[in-house]
């Protein structure tokens, strides 16, 4: 049985170096322009009050910023959408803080940092800020988190017959963890996915195949480097296809374990 999910993309959000929005990303991605070298600016999602923004960790700001962009483009109220947040590593700076404090003065652990350390912290802040009481899920699938999260969100949209918000993000590692975890650039992307019955837009066709995903040699070099620096940037080939309005078929590995049979998510983009 070969299952296929068909969905429309109603909204897109992006936040990354030189790409603080989907419109800005389109300019970079459509013509393969080199990325600028601007310093990272913390995004300012409107859903959070100014003091909440100041306190929020980068992971929350990134995830909420792209989620908000995607909902605005889709003209969907955030509170109405079930949501899936994918991240390979969660909040690495908070993990660094936790482990450093625990090694030295464990009873001084900050309660706020502790509850912000859960993998679903951005999902929690999103549902609280938007008043959303629908299902909310936080997933991780190692280097395949973007693909696995996309599949989870697409299944949810199709099985419930309702639009779903999907956001994928990772933030740079800090402290000793940074030597072990290969993530040193921020990147976040979000989609509002809708079952075709609700969406007249060009569809995505998702299926799972048992061959390995090919390499990403076709990416322009600056984007290729970004892809290596953040697992959520695995989405770049899909974003390029969407920015250029090109029909194509893309494979995203569902795991990278050479001891197991290969498995990939095949994403057909149909314009």
């Amino acid at each position: 049985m070969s299952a296929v999910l068909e969905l429309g993309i109603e909204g897109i959000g992006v936040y990354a170096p030189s790409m603080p929005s989907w419109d800005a990303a389109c300019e970079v991605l459509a013509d393969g322009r080199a990325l600028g070298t601007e310093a990272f600016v913390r995004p300012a999602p409107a859903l959070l009050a100014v003091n909440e923004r100041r306190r929020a960790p980068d992971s929350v700001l990134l995830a909420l910023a792209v989620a908000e962009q995607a909902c605005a483009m889709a003209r969907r109220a955030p509170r109405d959408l079930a949501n899936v947040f994918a991240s390979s590593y969660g909040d690495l700076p908070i993990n660094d803080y936790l482990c450093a404090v625990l090694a030295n003065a464990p009873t001084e652990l900050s309660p706020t940092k502790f509850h912000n350390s859960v993998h679903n912290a951005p999902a929690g802040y999103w549902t609280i800020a938007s008043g959303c009481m629908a299902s909310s899920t936080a997933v991780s699938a190692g280097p395949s988190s973007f693909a696995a999260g996309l599949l989870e969100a697409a299944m949810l949209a199709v099985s419930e017959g309702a639009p779903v918000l999907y956001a994928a993000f990772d933030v740079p590692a800090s402290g000793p963890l940074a030597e072990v975890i290969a993530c040193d650039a921020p990147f976040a992307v979000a989609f509002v996915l809708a079952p075709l019955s609700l969406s007249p837009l060009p569809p995505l066709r998702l299926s799972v195949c048992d061959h390995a995903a090919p390499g990403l040699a076709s990416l322009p070099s600056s984007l290729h480097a970004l892809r290596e620096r953040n697992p959520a940037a695995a989405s770049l080939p899909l974003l390029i296809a969407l920015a250029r309005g090109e029909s194509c078929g893309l494979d995203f590995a569902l795991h990278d374990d050479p001891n197991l049979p290969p498995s990939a998510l095949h994403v057909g983009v149909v314009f």
Partner: protein
Amino acid sequence: MPTRIAPLAITAFTATSAAGRGREALARALRTRTGGLIDNAFSSVPLTCKIGRVGGLEDATLPAATAAFDSRNHRLAWIGLNQDGFLDGARAVVERYGASRIALVLGTSTSSIGETERAYRQLDAQGHFPSSQCRPQVHQPHALGMFVQRVLGVAGPCLTLATACSSSAKVFASAERLLRAGFADAAIVGGVDTLCDSVLFGFNSLELVSNEACRPFDANRRGLSLGEAAGFAILERLPQSGKIHKSTMLLLGYGESSDAHHMSAPHPLGLGAERALDDALARAGLRTEQVDYINLHGTASRQNDTVEAALIARRFPATVRASSTKGWTGHTLGAAGILEAAIALIALEQGFAPGTLNTRELDPVCGPQIRIDNSEANLRIALSNSFGFGGNNCCLALACAESRA
């Protein structure tokens, strides 16, 4: 309101916690009211509290081919997989359907952060990880998924759900969708969470840890006891003939919701929990009066138990039996969903409703549904509640195909 779903067969399940390794030990502990909480001797400066610690993890080893995954969490996962013939059952399912047709969906809250904490205690003079800890596959949320995937040799969709204490309840929902959409022919689900300084000192910093063994729903409860557990289950579609053995266990439905209220406190009116309950009942095609047993989240925190008891009191008839089993196991966080689903399945299988351990006087907010004592009864339908930080809620509806009559 969601529409009804076709039930799935739960063709195998197992659980390991402070209340014992495997189903028999767990059932015996429940029946004899033998709790697993002991004095906390965990960490360099142990907090004064009780914990649900699984004995023997310090001496356990992983299979040689997966030795690089070594961590307390993976040791517990490996021990958990080896109970109740689960590993053989899982490998037989992989053989029957093919590796690429098996989905693996696991829940954890802290994954192997305990190993990362250890690496930070072992930093060299320049502040670097020792070479023995340069293992990225361990220091990340999906470590559990990658480890179990390798052990079982499965190659279908594989993901870790990490929504704090609802994680391994939500695995049933994700697996049901994968099976319904045709992305897999069987799903292996589960959850593993182990004691670590992050959760002991973290919950302590939130003033949620009791200095005594937790007393869920007690008028004088003082907070939760932390624990660790591993549990797994196999989900398959029912045969098209519709013929199933009367003792087959079923997943009837699930509900997932958000509180939209606070990161670490429940909605005061329990509206998120109630939405998860309503969605689970709708997917299962059930009314509240058809439910026989409810395994409650019941952490013994002041707020959770007040809100959850009020929800049960206003929605269920007095005849339903409801209890929290965290007095036996402690709160096993991301593993609580699968552990307590396993307890609910044992209840259905044995016609035995566990009560609530350590609780002496029920909070007046509790209705007649919440029981301290164990009881024998013909149980056909059970629910299991799991709620997590971020206001993340999940309710499972489980059944035995035919009542014990």
